[in-house]
């Protein structure tokens, strides 16, 4: 039997495909018998194995030779001492054997892999870095789940060892990584392959006992300034680091939360996931997280709390699409939240943009009053203090939205349900003196009672609500709550429109310190921030007031300057105040043409650069259907009379903004 070269030449020079076939078949049969013969060793065995590999390149069947490749590896390891005297590495056999195994065993015959598990675990610790490298390469390309699990710890300790030795070399040679970079490179690549096979192995790489490998690598190769420490680090090492970290990140996405790994690791995973929340599959990750939260056991309170805190910190839940997750997160985490965290949640809800808050409230009400909630959800309700506080607060704040907008057809039932719900809460937390959480929730409850009463139509229900306040204003209860209830009671009998202003929704809360604005401050919430609109182009003023109006009429000489579905605006020049001396006084009338109430109207007016404007108070910021509100503009300066007007108002509780320019046909 000839050499490999001979065989290749014969195949190459075959004149017809048939002849080629014959040569190959003949040689293949020969190789098969020879490899079975154990007396064939050393050089001759290697020749046969090489020919086997050539058969593989030609696309022939090579499965019969798989075991022989493995033998080549194991024979060499068992005969180390007898065959070789120096170092006993037997590199020739290893090199060819691993090449054979890598090529021939790929994707086939998974049972055979158990045979090489031991070999690999020995060889990756071989003193010769090239043998170790080959073994790592083999591990990377062949590993199935079992092999990955078996050898993962070996791999982790190898990488750790190498990284450590690089840091040690660090002290001696500032510019060299020694021999370890080759192993680190191959080790990390193998590690990424293993992680792809079984994401759960990530625990080994992030295990705290071993020290976090990623941190270690970074500390070893990069200085504090982010510069590479070693000048001889090739791109290969860096590539493998990047490759490894990418695999780790992918794993975290796939990470199986059901497995009972310890708290630190879960926490780390959650942290890493949320740090990378920009990655596309945010929704999937959130789904996973929520599912995890829903299944959290009581001993995982700390973790749940941590997770929730992180979710809040990164503001991922505050978009319209994610409001579903927010309700769920609160529902599942509520059990573990402390009072100040609950306050924080309320702040977040309060600061949601209108669209998000609408869908959030919708979700919440569905959960709260839906008949067919699942059993688990019900259990969550029973024990979920945070959720109760939140729901009470939301009903108060978003009363108009809930009763008048969300479900008009059944507003009567909703009102009934709300009142029942409040009574239930009230009964559950009656002891406001000794029980901290009771006083916490009841203080929210009384405010909510007052607020919601402005939107409920049914007289009997309003009376029931009033009774709640009366109950709490009782001197025997908690003093703070009783003071508060008394104040609210005194406001309770005010006319409805006035009450609505007083009990309007809280404005967006700007964080100043950690605590949410206390509910007491609700009563003084009618201040409005100055909005700096077009400040370099136009002088600007905004004015808003809460005075009640007497009924007004629009003078007959007025002109319409704006109209939309719900609002018409007119101006007139009042008698006795003609446009004179670069000064114009205008009366502006806002007429509500819709069938709903317009509330919280704010008017922002800007005039040309050469002019100044003083804007008077609106006679009333809430305009009932067909009502009118009046305002005076005093414009001073020179030039053509022009205004840009921006209106912010709520119609039927839904915020709305209008802006328009109007050019008067007059000069000043």
């Amino acid at each position: 039997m000839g050499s490999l070269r001979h065989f290749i030449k014969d195949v190459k020079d075959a004149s017809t495909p048939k002849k080629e076939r014959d040569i190959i078949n003949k040689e293949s049969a020969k190789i098969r018998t020879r490899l079975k013969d154990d007396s064939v060793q050393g050089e001759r065995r290697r020749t046969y194995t090489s020919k086997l590999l050539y058969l593989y390149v030609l696309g022939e069947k090579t499965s019969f030779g798989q075991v022989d490749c493995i033998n080549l590896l194991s024979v060499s390891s068992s005969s180390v001492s007898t065959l070789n005297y120096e170092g006993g590495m037997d590199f020739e056999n290893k090199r060819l054997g691993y090449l054979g195994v890598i090529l021939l065993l790929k994707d086939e015959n998974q049972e055979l892999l158990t045979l090489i598990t031991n070999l690999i675990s020995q060889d990756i610790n071989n003193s010769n870095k090239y043998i170790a490298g080959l073994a790592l390469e083999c591990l990377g390309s062949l590993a199935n789940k079992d092999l990955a699990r078996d050898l993962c710890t070996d791999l982790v300790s190898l990488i750790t060892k190498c990284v450590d030795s690089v840091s040690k070399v660090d002290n001696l040679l500032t510019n060299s990584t020694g021999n370890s970079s080759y192993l680190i490179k191959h080790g990390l690549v193998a590690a990424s392959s293993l992680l792809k096979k079984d994401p759960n192995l990530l625990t080994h790489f992030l295990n705290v006992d071993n020290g976090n490998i990623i941190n270690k690598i970074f500390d070893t190769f990069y200085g504090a300034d982010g510069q590479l420490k070693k000048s001889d680090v090739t791109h290969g090492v860096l590539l493998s680091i990047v490759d490894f970290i990418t695999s780790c990140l992918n794993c975290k996405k796939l990470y199986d939360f059901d497995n009972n790994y310890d708290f630190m690791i879960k926490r780390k995973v959650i942290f890493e996931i949320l740090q990378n929340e920009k990655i596309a599959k945010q929704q999937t990750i959130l789904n996973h997280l929520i599912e995890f939260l829903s299944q959290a056991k009581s001993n995982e309170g700390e973790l749940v709390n941590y997770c929730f805190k992180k979710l809040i910190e990164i503001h991922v839940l505050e978009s319209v699409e994610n409001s579903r997750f927010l309700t769920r997160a609160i529902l599942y985490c509520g059990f573990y939240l402390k009072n100040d965290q609950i306050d924080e949640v309320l702040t977040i809800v309060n600061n949601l943009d209108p669209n998000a808050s609408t869908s959030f409230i919708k979700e919440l009400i569905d959960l709260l009053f839906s008949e067919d909630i699942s059993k688990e959800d019900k259990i969550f309700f029973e024990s979920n203090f945070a959720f109760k506080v939140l729901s009470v607060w939301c009903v108060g704040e978003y009363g108009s939205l809930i009763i008048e907008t969300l479900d008009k057809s059944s507003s009567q039932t909703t009102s009934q349900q709300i009142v029942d719900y409040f009574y239930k809460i009230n009964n559950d937390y009656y002891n406001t003196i000794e029980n901290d959480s009771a006083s916490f929730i009841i203080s929210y409850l009384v405010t909510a009672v007052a607020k919601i009463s402005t939107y409920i139509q049914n007289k009997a229900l309003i009376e029931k609500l009033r009774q709640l306040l009366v109950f709490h204003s009782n001197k025997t209860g908690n003093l703070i709550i009783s003071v508060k209830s008394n104040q609210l009671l005194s406001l309770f009998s005010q006319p409805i429109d006035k009450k609505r202003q007083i009990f309007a929704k809280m404005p967006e809360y700007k964080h100043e310190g950690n605590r949410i604005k206390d509910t007491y401050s609700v009563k003084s919430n009618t201040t409005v921030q100055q909005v700096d609109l077009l400040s370099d182009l136009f002088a600007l003023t905004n004015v808003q007031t809460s005075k009640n109006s007497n009924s007004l009429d629009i003078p007959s000489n007025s002109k319409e300057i704006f109209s939309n579905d719900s609002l018409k605006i007119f101006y007139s020049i009042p008698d006795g105040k003609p446009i004179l001396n670069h000064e114009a006084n205008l009366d502006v009338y806002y007429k509500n043409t819709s069938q709903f109430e317009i509330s919280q109207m704010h008017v922002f007016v800007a005039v040309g650069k050469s002019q100044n404007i003083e804007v008077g108070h609106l006679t009333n910021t809430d305009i009932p259907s067909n009502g009118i509100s009046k305002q005076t503009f005093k414009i001073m300066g020179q030039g053509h009379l022009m205004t840009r007007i921006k209106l912010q108002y709520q119609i039927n509780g839904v915020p709305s903004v209008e802006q328009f320019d109007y050019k008067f046909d007059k000069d000043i």
Partner: protein
Amino acid sequence: MLDLQYMILLSKTGKVRCIRWFAEYTSREKQVLLKDVISLVLTRKAKESNIIEYDMKSVSNTKSLNGHRVMYKRYASLYFVAGIDDSDSCNELLILESIHRFVETLDKYFGNVCELDIIYNFQKCYYIMLETFSSDGNLLESSKKKILHDIQLMDQLENNDSINNILS
């Protein structure tokens, strides 16, 4: 980054000179794929693009390999063919560059490489491939110098072994 599915060195006569599978395929898939790739690549004209869209669905319905592309580059009589993932993260130019690196390394190792070098020393070619591309089809080392240095050391070790064997 590269996410190669396979790497095939193909002669212009359609003979495989060196082949490595990075992704997991069954033998049947490999067979069909190889046949398709050979006919696809060989029928390309010089002016056509180096990227061929390849629909895997006809071969396999088990895996999401449908969006898969074949990239090739011809050097003299040899085609270097790589199967690449059809994802956004895949950079075709980077793949061409990696192939070129590989060819340059071969060239340096054999000294003006020709097809015959690769035919007769296909193992060496594999060894260089092992050092250039990692087991999951990514670039393992981009430095030619480093690869050649490592390969030469390994060759030396191998030769020492032979001498030792003769001596003992």
